[in-house]
Each structure stands twice: as C-alpha cells, then as structure tokens.
C-alpha cells in the first residue's frame, strides 16, 4: 500500500526584533501576559498594519534556499474566522489561488532517503501572522472560561507546504531534519524556542481519504504520529473499511491520534486581498542582493566537507545537519588534521553523549581543543579507544583535566622493552592456541596484542609490543 505524506510546517521568524505588522518587541516569551502588545497587534479599532522589511527579506532568503520561484509581488489577504486568539477575527496571510500569489512556490529540498537521492517538492511558502495564545485555569473540561495572552499575536510566521512526495514516517523525519538545518543555517529560526516550529501532517493511503494531523510540536513526534496513523489506517483498510477525510490531533502522552471535534465554524474563509496593504513589489535586484548574501547552506557545506576534509557523504551529512557540530568540527580541524578520526568521534560518542546529557548546544563548556587533545593522546597510544569512550562524558561535562588524570593514573606509556618482553612471554605462555593461530595467520597476532594491552591496562606501547611479539613468534617458528 503506497503511502502519501505531505507536510505543512509553520516556523516563527525568531530573529526579528519586532513583529510582522507592528513595532512591538518580538521576544515575547519572557514577558507577563499582554505586555508585548500594542494597538495594532491587539486589533484595536482604527489600527492598521505596516509590513516588517526584514520579514520579507527572510522569506525571500528561505524561498531561495528552498529553490523556489519568487513572486514579483507580495499580496496579503484576509482569512476570516472567529476565534478568541485572533484579535481581528481575521488573519492577515497569503493565499494560493487564482489571482493571489504566495511569496514563493515550486521549490524542492534534496534528501538522501532509502539509499537514494530524492527531491521533496515545496508547493508554496506563505508569510502570515501568528495569533495569540489561549490558556485555561486547570483543565479545559473544568474551566468556565478561557484566558487569552496576545503577546504572540502578530509574530511573523512562514508557512512551508510540501507536495505529498514523502513516502514514509522516516522519510518525513529526514526531510524535516534537512529543512530545519537549512532554516538554522539561514538564521531564520531558533528551533530551541518553544512554539517556534509546528507541523501539520497530511497522510493518506493511496486511494483512500486524507487525514490531517494538526499541530505537532517536534520532529520526533511527527515521525511517531505518522507511524501510528499508518498502522491505524492500514488496519482499517485491511478489514475492508474506508478512511474518511478528517482532522486529528496527536496526543503526545498517550501516543495516539484522536479525532478533533468537527469544526464549529464554517470553512469559508472569504479570502480577499487586504485593502490596508497594497502589494509589495519585489524586484530582481532585491532578490539577487539577498541571494548574494546567503550564508553557506547545508548542501553546499556537505559538498565542501567532502572535498576539503575528505569525508564521505554520510559523515559529512551528519555533521552538517547538526550545524553546531559542524562548526565544532571545523574549529577542530584548525588544530588537528586527522579529519576522519575527528569526524568519527564527533558523530558517534560525542554527539550521543551531548544528547544523552541533554546539554544546551549553545552553551557547551567543552571546546574543540578538549576533544582534539583526547584524540592526540589516542594517536600516541597513551589512551586507548576504550578509554576515550569512557572519558568522553566527563570531558564533555568539563569535569576532568586530562593531563592531571593521566598523571594521576600513571598513564604513561610503557615502552620499557625488557618489561614488555616479560609480559609478552607471559602472555604467550598463557595463550597457546592463540600462538598457534598467529603462527599460521599473521593477522591473528592482534589477539595477543590485545591480551598484552589488557594486562598492562592499555599502557603498553603498541608498536613496540608488536615488534616484541613478532620476535617471539618468529623464534618459535624456527
């Protein structure tokens, strides 16, 4: 059964200082309710919207990064519906329909999924305003009324809509990872901020009705919700049932989707161009200027990493899609030249521990030279891979001074040949079978080397150990 998934992603343009249509401060999360407001974003009678220039510029930048066609004019429309979080009871938004144009359309994002390159098409990008937020004292059921905070009202949103080109929940995650990376590289959105990123997912089994899951707040939840939905839908279809078109809500805690109540209001939004906002003309000069100022984007950086650092696509991609990690890596390459080793440790242990320790990647105390130091010690044989792995969390947390540690543990390398020879002879005596293997197959010497390492707590000089062992073995041959 073929599965068709389309996504509608709403992101707040979090790096703007003011709101979309007024000059109110946009960092509303820090404030008490209804303190980041003004007559315009409260929708007081007689107020009028004025467009934030930077919001348009960011929208164009995002559109370019997503390979879209940019409209020659931005037309804002009014989308009418009644709801307490919507001060004017219409939202100033954009619309894709005859006569009206969104700011951008017909783009794509390249992803690597199921072992192949795939292009997920972007249908359109809209700019619109965020409504306020509704709260309840206690739970929704018991509350007799709602409480509305308009701080968020008027915050700029970009709505990015894909074609139903995504064919699995996993692919949806891969797509979203890539999209978020692009947006972070542009500096358009800081997804660590609560509410800055929301997804509506549309999913259908080919031939059956489309189900929309609204308002999912994280990429992980998108994947989970889609996985749940597919199973739910497949079960219905297999039992001969049919899927009706509906809207559902993802319940994070229970891990299920539930039907949303039927819409109380008519779905006729009565779109028409906002008479308070004449169309904004976008010239080629403006677009080219923005294009020329675009920072290096993920795809470009991945290619550069491949060429400059000789990494394979997989490693390059993992690094680049976590921008902070790629930045960390590049800092490291300035003082360490075994790029592959550095990339390896970063994308495995380092990344895993940072996530496990739930650290804020913007405030890491560990620096690239800390990791490089570990790797240099590894290269010299002072530390083994196992030790590096063990020490990693402490290094990340900044709890350890490596030099001190080495000194304290006496972790200096053993390169005293006499001593090593003693240990080697001991080891050979204790492992007759291994010796036989090694005499037949030279590669099997590693087992013996490993045993010696164990005996010496990993401190034996690997090269000297190897030489001594070879000598012993050769003497056995004769």
């Amino acid at each position, binding site marked *: 059964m073929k599965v068709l998934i389309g996504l509608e992603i709403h992101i707040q343009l979090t790096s703007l200082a003011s709101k979309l249509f007024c000059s109110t401060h946009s960092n509303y999360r820090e404030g008490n309710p209804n303190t980041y407001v003004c007559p315009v974003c409260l929708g007081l009678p007689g107020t009028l919207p004025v467009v934030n*220039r930077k919001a348009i510029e960011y929208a164009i930048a995002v559109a370019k990064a997503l390979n879209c066609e940019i409209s020659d004019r931005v037309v804002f429309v009014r989308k009418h519906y009644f709801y307490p979080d919507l001060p004017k009871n219409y939202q100033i938004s954009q619309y894709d329909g005859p006569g009206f144009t969104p700011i951008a359309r017909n783009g794509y994002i390249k992803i690597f999924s199921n072992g192949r390159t795939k292009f997920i098409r972007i249908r359109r990008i809209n700019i619109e305003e965020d409504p306020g937020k509704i709260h309840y004292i206690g739970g929704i059921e018991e509350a007799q009324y709602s409480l509305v905070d308009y701080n968020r009202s008027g915050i700029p949103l970009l709505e990015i809509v894909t074609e139903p080109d995504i064919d699995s929940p996993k692919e949806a995650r891969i797509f979203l990872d890539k999209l978020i990376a692009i947006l972070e590289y542009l500096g358009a959105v800081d997804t660590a901020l609560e509410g800055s990123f929301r997804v509506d997912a549309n999913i259908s089994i080919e031939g059956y009705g489309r189900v929309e899951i609204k308002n999912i707040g994280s990429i992980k939840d998108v994947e989970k919700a889609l996985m749940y939905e597919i199973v739910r839908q497949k079960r219905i279809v297999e039992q001969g049932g049919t899927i009706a078109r509906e809207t559902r809500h993802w319940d994070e805690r229970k891990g299920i989707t539930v039907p949303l109540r039927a819409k109380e209001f008519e779905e006729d939004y009565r779109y028409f161009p906002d008479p308070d906002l004449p169309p*904004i003309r976008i010239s080629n000069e403006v677009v080219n200027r923005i294009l020329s100022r675009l920072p290096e984007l993920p795809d470009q950086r991945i290619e550069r990493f491949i060429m400059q650092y000789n990494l394979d696509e997989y490693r390059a991609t993992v690094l680049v899609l976590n921008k902070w990690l790629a930045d960390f890596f590049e800092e490291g390459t300035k003082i360490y030249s075994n790029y592959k080793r550095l990339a390896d440790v970063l994308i495995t242990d380092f990344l895993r521990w940072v996530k496990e320790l739930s650290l804020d990647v913007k405030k890491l105390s560990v620096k690239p030279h800390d990791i490089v130091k570990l790797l240099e010690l590894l290269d010299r044989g002072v530390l083994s891979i196992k030790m590096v792995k063990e020490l990693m969390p402490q290094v990340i947390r900044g709890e350890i001074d490596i030099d001190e540690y080495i000194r304290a543990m006496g972790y200096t390398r053993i390169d005293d040949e006499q001593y090593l020879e003693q240990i080697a002879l001991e080891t050979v005596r204790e492992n007759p079978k291994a010796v036989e293997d090694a005499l037949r197959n030279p590669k099997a010497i590693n087992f013996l080397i490993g045993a010696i390492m164990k005996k010496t707590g990993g401190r034996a000089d690997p090269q000297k150990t190897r030489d001594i062992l070879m000598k012993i073995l050769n003497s056995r041959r004769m």
Partner: protein
Amino acid sequence: MLILSEDLIGYLERLVLIKFSDIERKRISVEVDKIVSLFNELKNIENLDRYEPLFHVHEISSPLREDEALDKVDEEHDMLRGNALLVHGYVKAPKTMVE
C-alpha cells in the same frame, strides 16, 4: 431574482455570528431581494471581464518598516484595562472547546 430562503439567511448568520429577529428577517428578505437585484445589474455590462479587478486605487507599493522594536509596554498599560475583562493580566474570553 434572488429568493432569500431561510437557508441562506441562516447560513449568513452562522458565517458572521449575527442573528436576526423575526421582524428583522421579514424586513431583510424584502430588502435584500431588491439590493441583490441592483447588484445583478452589473451583469448587464458587456465585456466587463476585459478589465482586471482594481483592488487598490493608487499604484503604490506598501511601505516597508525597518525591523526596530519599541520598548516593551509596562504592566500598567491602558490598552486593555477599561475595555477588556482582565484576570491576572490575561483577557477573559469564552471557552473554545464545545461539548
């Protein structure tokens, strides 16, 4: 001729969240009939489709505002006080979940 059925009035009432009283309904069905007939006279103009709709009377582009933020309002602002019902700074509003 538009025949203003109950359905249409009911539909419009729900669309704009307004109710007409019985007297008003009687009055409006007569009036709207006449008004919509007037509106329909536009159909008689030949070749009107040759013209693009004129949404804005002047050919100006919306001005763009520089991205500068004003100072945050202080807690004692009067934009809502006196005009809205406030509970701990929030605006009191009806519920959005319906049984």
